[in-house]
């Protein structure tokens, strides 16, 4: 039932100063599957997601204990630049740079040393195609990324993440700022992308988690307001036959 894990946390704890945001999290992220992290606001979903590419470290006073592994390697022993090359991220609010569509997608490859114009052009095209945006922008790649619609901007951000050929894509509520049609497009895209990539998505929207994900992690805060992982399993099990009564309460909408 369980496929091989691309990422894994072992007794992982995260502290913001003296506040313990995550308590003893043990989670597996299976290869080429979509794993959803669900739970009520403030339960540490985003903190966990941002642990996978060490974005938490941007916040002063952050401390962690325990391990996080990518392909069996401890990410805290790796160079953070190398790590982030392997793990792309898509944010809640689309954040294309104030540059052209082309330069947005070429941004990653360029900073990682690719200068050759034909190679760059190729990367831009394949990335935009993979992100299902190519047909809409191919006639004017010089247009500002910020001139696109919200849904297009988010797909541009996905293309930008794909351009560095990551193994994992982290998505932090990627559709919460989008309308239903744009949301559907992103979800269809995720379905396609999982053939090549391992995807982790944080979502507030339980229908979305049920629709798109193969595995689901349910998180909840304890009495100290720290985030705990309550249950992890195949999405169908979590949604139809949860083991923990708290999961069932949340799924059935009794709180949260």
């Amino acid at each position, binding site marked *: 039932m369980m496929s091989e894990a691309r990422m894994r946390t072992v007794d992982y704890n995260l502290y913001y100063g003296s506040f313990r945001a995550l308590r003893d999290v043990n989670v597996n992220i299976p290869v080429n599957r979509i794993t959803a992290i669900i739970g009520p606001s403030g339960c540490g979903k985003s903190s966990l997601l941002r642990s996978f*590419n060490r*974005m938490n470290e*941007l916040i002063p006073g952050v401390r962690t204990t325990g391990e996080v592994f990518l392909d069996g390697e401890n990410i805290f022993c790796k160079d*953070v*630049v*190398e*790590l*982030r*090359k392997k793990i*792309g*991220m898509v*944010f809640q*609010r689309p*954040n*294309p*740079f*104030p*540059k052209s569509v082309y330069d947005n997608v070429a*941004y*990653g490859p360029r*900073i*990682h040393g690719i200068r050759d114009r034909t190679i760059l052009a190729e990367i831009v095209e394949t990335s935009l195609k993979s992100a299902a945006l190519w047909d809409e922008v191919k006639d004017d790649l010089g247009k*500002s990324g*910020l*001139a696109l619609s919200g849904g297009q901007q988010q797909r541009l*951000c996905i293309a*930008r*993440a794909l351009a*560095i050929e990551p193994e994992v894509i982290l998505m932090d509520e990627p559709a919460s700022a989008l309308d239903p049609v744009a949301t559907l497009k992103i979800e269809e895209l995720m379905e396609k992308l999982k053939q090549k990539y391992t995807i982790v998505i944080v979502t507030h929207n339980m229908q979305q988690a049920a629709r798109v994900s193969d595995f689901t992690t349910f998180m909840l805060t304890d009495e100290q307001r720290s985030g705990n992982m309550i249950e992890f399993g195949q999405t169908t099990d979590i949604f139809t036959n949860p083991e923990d009564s708290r999961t069932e309460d949340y799924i059935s909408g009794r709180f949260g």
Partner: protein
Amino acid sequence: MARLSSPPRVTSRSTERGRPAKVTGKQRVESVVKYIFLFSALMSILIVVMIGIFTFREAIPAFREIGIIKLLTGTVWRPGQGQYGILAMIAGSGLVTLGAVIIGVPLALGCAIFLSEIAPPAVRSIVRPSIELLAGIPSVVYGLFGMVVIVPLVRNIDVPGNTGFGLLSASIVLAVMILPTISSVSEYAIRSVPKRFREGSLAMGATKWETLTNVILPGAKSGIMSAIILGLGRALGETIAMIMVIGNSVIIPFAASDNPLSIFLSRARTLTGNIAVEINYATGLHESALFATGVVLFALIMIMNSSARILIGRRKWEKK
């Protein structure tokens, strides 16, 4: 009335009957407040226009009797003999401003980047107030500092005729004077680049430095441009500190050695200095010519501001 039916209906009905909608007390306050602010805005425009008009009016005799072309291109300023050419002063002001920008802008941008990106909060809380303090020092004090510190240092450069007083000393003093303006406005511009751009770049595996040069600075470009323009305006308008260190000779700055850069060791006079030095005893056409100098200064600053605005406007798409 509003409680009985929905407000939009009331309005449309009353307009249909040609009766204005009833003005409530709240609306009256709203419109009074609006006019107070409108008045403040108009007042500042009015003041600018008045200054322009009166300066220009006093300058008319000079423009008429000397001629604009002769005034602007004349290289000799000898009021006693009726020669009124301010080209030397235009060159002096231009060169000293250029020098101040060359020295001051990199320094100010360095400060801004340090404060916004690098300095830990404790260091920032010491450095930022010190830089801001620079803005509060009276310019005559900068002049004194220039005379006792900068001028003797510059005097050490071995070029014939170098007294220390001249464009270089003035540029250095001016660079320090415009530093706080450029630095604080640029820092604000850098800080207002949305955090999500920074995160997006870092998440791609970019280093802090790559993020700064590729995303943050381009994003803050228009703000940094206006910071530099503000600094330029201040540089062009500075008077007393310039009088104290620039030497005040009415000559077109020249290079005294083979090195063309030695032009900056030349003595010079600024447009502002020209007015301040002579206005106390000037009469008649001489006085009018000084007002004409003021008009030229006024025009220069207006040209600079509007060209800056055009420059920033062209890049507007970036800010969308």
